[in-house]
Each structure stands twice: as structure tokens, then as C-alpha cells.
């Protein structure tokens, strides 16, 4: 067994990179992820980590260097957030298109404007089509464990895709929690050195990142799509192996008190713990609620979502992000996943906690109210609701 430490979420991701014996860390500081390169720098300065730390002049160059290093055969990790992830965005698609298993910790933070440094999923949600696998942590333990597993999943030759692990700004990145830090020996047994399929090699020269005409482009994309679905199985295998080795169970979607629930909250990230506490509180009042946490967002867990939907009368889907002109991205994907089901629960969407606004029990009361009304009526009505919106700030309308 590992060692119990009380650490911040950012530290958990940095220690994961250290335990994974990452070869190269290209990084650029940004709130709330800065502690990641700081911690790696400290490891390097103290001779505790054998890594090439490449402090670039921008996030764009950090991801570009990650691509170069990964293609050269290195295990690569980085961390960023918000605007930094946006600046990397171009390169995210290229990393996945080149099938490079880079792992990034994302301190999920709101996007400008207005500029805001607090918890929000808009940054990584906007990259859901980038071809990166996406995992979301509820706790600092999740952040550490998911980082370790992300390398193993990403580097599997059936997959060879990059992965990001999201942890909520400040709620996790800067909050101390008790974390089991695995021993190096245990991690070495779980995660052997990266064995790339193809690398830049002067003894076996190859061309990486070539020009794909219409005669070949769709097949490149198809193979990438296929690898993402293969990752669905690889994730299950790695989760199972991790549980066997470290005793902590991970699921793509974890359910809590859903068996007899009329209303199921669907959450991601740190809100999931609050949701379980709210469920216990609401159950005391005789309201049949349950909750489900989505840990794996890409590849999308279709089967889990279908199973979940078959049990509920209302799915109350939380989104800490909004697609302007539509609704929440999790809501959109769950709706899409259920479209061909003969029987579907009422699907409601709750936009909540944007820009780090606290998510409290009273928000759950508001969500239950809306859900109960829809349940009584037997229809959703307009499904998208903004929770705890300060209408007093919205102006008079002239």
C-alpha cells in the first residue's frame, strides 16, 4: 500500500507524473494549474525526478513540444487550463490525429470574457471533439489515479490517443485532501515504460504528419474514431487492473442510490460529492432521488447512460458549461445517446456553477422542484434551466 498524504489536486497530478516516470514535461504556467510545473521544477531542482522539463514561451509551444517529444518516443505530460487550453486547441487536434499518447491535467476553469479563474468545465468541454479522451476527477485521489491510468490507456497500442484529466479549479486544484500516494514499485508494476509503435528514428526514418488528400483523409479519421471506441474496452480493463492492484474502484459512470430513484442527478467533477450528500438529505425528506457521476466523457459511455436512463423517471443533467445557442454539453450528449431508446425518462438540463459559483443544497432543492413539476406533468417543457441565477443582476429590459 501507498502512503497517505494530505495534498492539493495539482500536487496529485504532479506526483502522478513523477510516479509515471514521465520523460518530458513541456509546460507553461496558468492559474489554476501552475502548481503542476512548479512542483515538477522542485522535483528537478532537488534531484528527485529524472525528467526533461521544457518551460516554453506559450501553451501553444508547450503542446507543440509535447508532440515533438511524444513522436520522438518519450512519455509526455503537461498541465494547463482555460485560456491556455484554448491556445493549445489547434495542437490538441494534431496530437490526436498523429496518435500521440500525451497526458494532460486540466484545472477546469471558466473562459474569458469576462475573465474568471474559478471552476467551470467550459474549457475542456469545448475540446470534446479534439480527439482526446476525457476523464473528470471528483477528488484529488481521482486526479492522481486517473492520471496514472490515463498513461496506460493512452499508450495501449489498440488506442494510441492522448488523454486529459479534468480537476475543478480551486475546489480540487488548490484544496488539500487526504490522498493515498502509491509506492513507486507498485506504479512501476502497473505502468511499464512506454513502448511506442512508431518513433522518429535515424535508423528507421519515417515521415510524421504528412499531407492527407481526399484519397486518404477519411480513413485516417476513421481509424482514430475506431481507436476511441476500442478505448472503451481498454478503459474497463485498466480500471479493473487498477482496482486489483490498488483497491480503488473506478467506473465510467458511478451510480449512487439509483435503484429505486425517480429523479437521478447526473454530475461531473467535484459536484458529484455534493450531489451524494444532497441525495441523502433529500431521501430523509422522502424524495426518491439518486445520483450518477460521469467520470469518462470521451469516449462517451453510451451503454452506462442507457442503463441509467432505464431506471429513472427524470434525469436531471448538470452542466458546469454551456454551449451558447444550445444547452449543456453533457445534456446534449446524453440526449443523443438515448434518442433511439423506445422508453426514455424526462431529460432536464441544469446549467450550474459557472465561473466558480458555489453549488449548494438549495440549488438541489431548486432542481428537485423543477424535476418534480415535470414528473407530475409527464413532460419536460423547455428543458434547459439556469440554476441560482441572480435575476436581480439581469437589468430591467429597456
Amino acid at each position: 500500500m501507498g502512503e497517505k498524504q494530505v495534498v492539493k489536486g495539482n500536487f496529485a497530478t504532479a506526483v502522478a507524473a513523477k510516479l509515471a516516470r514521465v520523460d518530458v514535461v513541456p509546460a507553461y504556467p496558468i492559474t489554476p494549474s501552475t502548481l503542476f510545473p512548479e512542483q515538477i521544477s522542485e522535483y528537478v531542482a532537488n534531484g528527485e525526478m529524472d525528467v526533461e522539463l521544457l518551460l516554453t514561451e506559450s501553451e501553444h509551444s508547450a503542446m507543440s513540444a509535447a508532440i515533438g517529444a511524444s513522436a520522438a518516443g518519450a512519455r509526455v505530460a503537461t498541465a494547463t487550463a482555460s485560456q491556455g487550453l484554448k491556445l493549445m486547441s489547434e495542437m490538441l487536434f494534431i496530437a490526436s490525429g498523429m496518435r500521440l499518447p500525451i497526458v494532460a491535467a486540466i484545472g477546469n476553469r471558466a473562459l474569458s470574457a469576462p475573465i474568471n479563474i474559478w471552476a467551470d468545465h467550459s474549457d475542456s468541454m469545448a475540446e470534446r471533439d479534439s480527439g482526446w479522451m476525457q476523464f473528470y476527477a471528483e477528488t484529488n485521489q481521482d486526479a492522481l489515479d486517473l492520471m496514472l491510468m490515463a498513461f496506460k490507456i493512452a499508450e495501449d497500442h489498440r488506442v494510441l490517443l492522448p488523454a486529459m484529466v479534468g480537476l475543478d479549479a480551486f475546489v480540487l486544484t488548490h484544496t488539500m485532501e487526504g490522498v493515498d500516494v502509491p509506492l513507486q514499485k507498485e506504479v512501476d508494476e502497473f505502468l511499464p515504460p512506454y513502448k511506442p509503435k512508431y518513433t522518429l528514428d535515424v535508423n528507421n526514418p519515417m515521415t510524421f504528419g504528412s499531407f492527407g488528400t481526399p484519397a486518404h483523409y477519411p480513413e485516417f479519421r476513421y481509424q482514430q474514431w475506431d481507436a476511441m471506441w476500442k478505448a472503451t474496452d481498454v478503459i474497463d480493463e485498466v480500471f479493473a487492473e487498477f482496482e486489483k492492484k490498488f483497491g480503488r474502484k473506478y467506473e465510467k459512470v458511478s451510480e449512487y442510490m439509483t435503484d429505486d430513484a425517480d429523479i437521478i442527478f447526473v454530475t461531473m467533477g467535484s459536484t458529484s460529492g455534493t450531489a451524494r450528500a444532497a441525495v441523502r438529505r433529500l431521501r430523509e425528506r422522502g424524495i426518491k432521488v439518486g445520483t450518477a457521476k460521469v467520470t469518462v466523457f470521451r469516449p462517451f459511455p453510451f451503454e452506462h447512460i442507457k442503463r441509467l436512463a432505464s431506471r429513472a423517471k427524470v434525469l436531471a443533467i448538470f452542466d458546469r458549461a454551456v454551449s451558447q445557442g444550445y444547452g449543456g454539453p453533457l445534456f446534449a450528449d446524453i440526449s443523443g445517446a438515448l434518442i433511439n431508446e423506445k422508453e426514455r425518462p424526462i431529460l432536464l438540463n441544469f446549467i450550474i456553477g459557472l465561473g466558480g459559483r458555489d453549488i449548494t443544497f438549495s440549488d438541489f432543492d431548486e432542481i428537485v422542484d423543477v424535476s418534480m413539476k415535470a414528473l407530475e406533468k409527464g413532460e419536460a417543457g423547455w428543458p434547459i434551466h439556469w440554476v441560482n441565477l441572480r435575476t436581480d443582476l439581469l437589468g430591467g429590459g429597456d
Partner: protein
Amino acid sequence: MASDELFVSGHRGCAGCGMADAVRMVLQEAGPNTVVANATGCLEVMTTAYPETAWKIPWIHAAFENAAAVASGVDVAFKKLGKRENVNILAFAGDGGTFDIGFQALSGMLERGHNITYVVFDNEAYMNTGIQRCSSTPPYASTTTSPAGKVILGKQGRKKPIANIVAAHDIAYTATATIAYPRDLRNKVQKALSADGPSFIHIFSPCPTGWRYPSNMTVEVSRLAVETGIFVLWELEGGDIHNIKVTCKPKEKRKPVEEYFRLQGRFKHLLKHPDIIAQIQKEVDEKCAKYEID
């Protein structure tokens, strides 16, 4: 074609492409223990249409503005993996990917001190997208976004002195070169590769398609740029910019710039404006005096 070619024939470069010649010479000097990180541009497009490749060395392209950053990643990864010894890491980019959009990544690479040779192939406009003006485009050149019109006579503004700016980063070796002077170019590649730290070569690469001259005149245009003093061949060993040394001077008396303009469609409109030509001549004379060419 000789068997030691690392940049092979059959690619889709235009007839008379000055860059293709330059790439071939650079790789002949660098040899097979070389990795190239290439920016998006003519060079990438014309050499790597899947499933073909013109490269017999490991080669990587990611995007337009980041050849320096990708090369930096390869550099540190090779170091960490114990594969760095006796391997040259080169970054190749066009003028757009260097003077403009890739400038920040280049500056970062130089500041971090990577042992990388960055080569810019300068054809003085965005040729791959169809001849748009760039900060490398010389004054008054007509491009599709700086057309010579009735009111405005081509590109307004100056050509960014990229090699001088790079040299100001206090790096190991900086040089300018062009294909009409192959021995000079090859020497500079060797010096760049053996330099301890970042090195940079600005290769002036005439483009018959974008400059509008007959494709058999590439070497002449390249030579004329030097003989008129429009392009100065120099090198700098070490970081003191006062030590810039001119490596090749015009053999005879410097030729008038008009001879250079006359060959190229992009400057055709200038021939009706002797006042502008005189002004440019004056500026070139001043520059040549500074480099002590005459």
C-alpha cells in the same frame, strides 16, 4: 540522382523552386543522422502527400507556427532517451512560418538554448496559399494582398531583418545564404551544425511562381540579389552583433537594383517609377556601406 540524396526527386515542387535546391544542399551537408521538424508550407505540402514522401530522414510536421517548438520537444526527448548524440536536429520553415506566425516559437527556442539549427527558406511571401504579402516581402513587391494598383504600388512597409533579430538573441551562429553561392551555403550549414547551441540560417530562396520570372532563371535571380546588394551574405559566430562578417561580395562593381527588378513580374510596375527605384537604390547603397561591401 546520387544514392546519398536524403531529399529525393519526384516531389511536387514547381520547376525552378529555389527552396528545393536549398533543402537538398542542407541535407547533403547534414547527412543521415538528422531529424527535421518542418512547418506547414510549400515544403511540407510538396514533399509528403500521403503515402509518398521525399524524405529519407526522420521528418515531422505538426503545424504552421511551431517548427521551433516541435524541434525543441524532439531535442529534449532524444536527450532523455539517450538518442541525442551525433544527431542533428533541424527546424525547417518558410518565411511566413518564421518572420510572422512562427516568430514567437522561434524566439522561445533560441532563448532556451536548444542545440537546433533553424533554417528559414525565404521566398518573400505566403506562396503556399497563393502569394500573399508577409513581413518578409520587400517594399513595393506586388502580391495578391499587396497588389500594385493605381493608388498603392505594392507592399507598403519594410522587410523584417529576421537574421539580425535572431542574432540579437545572442546565439551560437547566425548566417544568411542563397543557392547561387552553394559553397558559401554549405560552409554555413556545417558551421551551424557544429555550433554549440542554437543556430540559424536565412536562405534567400527565389520562387519563379510568386516572383514571376522564367523558371530557368532561379540561380540568376539568386545571384543578382547578391550582386545588387539587395541580399547580403553574412555570418556571425557568437552573439556579438558587431562581429557580423560579410562572406561573399559582388565580384565586380555592385549592379544597379533595377537589373534585379527588371527580371521579375512582381516589380514590373516599378519600372515606370524611376523615382522609387532611385529611392530603393539609395537605401541599398546605405545598407551596403554599413556592411562595407563596396
